[in-house]
């Protein structure tokens, strides 16, 4: 579904991705783990062109991403951010309908119907007229999830979706993501929640210093890590 081939990315003198190769399996959930600065968020952000790669190719659904019209690419690839990034001057409902009406050109009434259904699935429909500032972190992230889902993407990117949440709200968001992993969506999740990765991920990638150190199925990854650096990392955090 998503394949990255020999990608490189630098920010000025800092090389963040060094020849990264990976094929994300269709309909599966892949967790990307690693220390801060290992390049995992950058890898994710390259897939929907929030960052442009310096070299290499990224293929989504059989086609190179630079051959897509940007709007066509993002209708296949949804994203949920660490800081929710809801539009602060729009109500919850407007946040979710906005891209439907402006990008997909769906009429307002139909868009609102779709948006309400999406809000319903993540249990925040009752907040539809609120502004984001009045919501809890967990609610904000669920709205952000609805906003990404309503586009009906085939790939969903999660950039540390629970890192900005208060501890008591982490689970309500993880529960929603967990539901998504059973819908056939291709999920790619950058996370620090090892327990969650263990539970929902089919595949796990461990990154360090801009390279993929180890990538395998979740069970083997956590029970029999092969590389010394992976073991070291897991020992430190588990």
């Amino acid at each position, binding site marked *: 579904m998503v394949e990255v081939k020999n990608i490189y990315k630098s920010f000025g003198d800092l090389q963040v991705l060094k020849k990264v190769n990976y094929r994300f399996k269709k309909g599966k959930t892949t967790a990307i783990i690693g220390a801060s600065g290992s390049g995992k968020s950058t890898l994710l952000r390259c897939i*929907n*062109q*929030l960052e442009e790669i310096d070299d290499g190719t990224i293929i989504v659904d059989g086609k190179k991403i630079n051959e897509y019209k*940007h*709007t066509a*690419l*993002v*209708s296949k690839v*949804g*994203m949920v*951010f660490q*800081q*929710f*990034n*809801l*539009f*602060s*001057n*729009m109500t919850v409902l407007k946040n979710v309908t*906005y*891209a439907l009406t*402006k*990008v997909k050109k769906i009429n307002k009434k139909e868009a609102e119907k779709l948006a309400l259904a999406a809000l319903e699935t993540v249990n925040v429909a009752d907040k539809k007229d*609120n*502004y984001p*500032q*009045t919501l809890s972190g967990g609610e904000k992230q669920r709205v*952000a999830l609805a*906003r990404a889902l309503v*586009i009906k993407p085939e790939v969903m990117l999660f950039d540390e979706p629970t890192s900005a949440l208060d501890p008591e709200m982490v689970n309500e968001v993880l529960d929603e993501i967990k539901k998504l992993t059973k819908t056939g969506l291709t999920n790619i999740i950058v996370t620090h929640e090892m327990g969650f990765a263990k539970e929902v991920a089919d595949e796990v990638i461990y990154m360090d210093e801009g390279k993929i150190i180890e990538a395998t199925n979740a069970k083997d990854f956590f029970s029999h890590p092969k590389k010394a650096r992976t073991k070291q990392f897991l020992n430190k955090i588990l």
Partner: protein
Amino acid sequence: MENLFNYHAIKEWIPYLLKGINITLLIALIAAIFGVIIGIVLVVMTNHKITNKLAVAYIDVFRGTPLLLQLSIIYFALPQIMDRLINDYLNFNISFQIAGLTAAFITFSLNSGAYISEIIRSGINSVDKGELEAAKALGISKFHVYKDIILPIAFRNSFPSLMNEFVTLVKESSIVSIIGIQDLMRRQQIVTSQTYMYFEPLVIIGIIYYVVIKILSYVGRKVEVKLSYGRS
């Protein structure tokens, strides 16, 4: 008490003093409107390599010198230098007198433009980069990002500062009295010259300024709450 504040003697002058508020507000309003326009132009200019230096210099000069000096240059010095340049060197005979009110409009607009450009710029900078990323990740066009996200949020965030600038303009406009414009301050001077009273007309115009500014602040706060999107 009667000797302290001679209401009886000032009473007949109150309507005359009150009329000064029209000029005061007119200058502030014109300066605010053109100040916003000039401010936007300056923000656009600072974003382009070629015009950046010019805009920065403009802002620097207007913020780095007193308003009274700027007004004096436009009203007194500019006609004189024009006269020397055109009439003396080229042997023309054109009158370069500038009307006081015109000079005031120009000076206050140019001056507030420099301040307002800084306000607008920081308003645009205050828009959360994450929201812009989210818009990009959803495929929203640049035009819609500006129209629906950046400008409304920048306006909301800079509204208190813009209101503050307007209040400052109302107060600062009192310096136009030195070029003879009959604003509140000038009218007080005229009343004083007619009645030999300083205290009474000063108290009256003080109250007028204060009440007008209170009303403006009140309206400003109401609008601010409207713009806060449930934030406050």
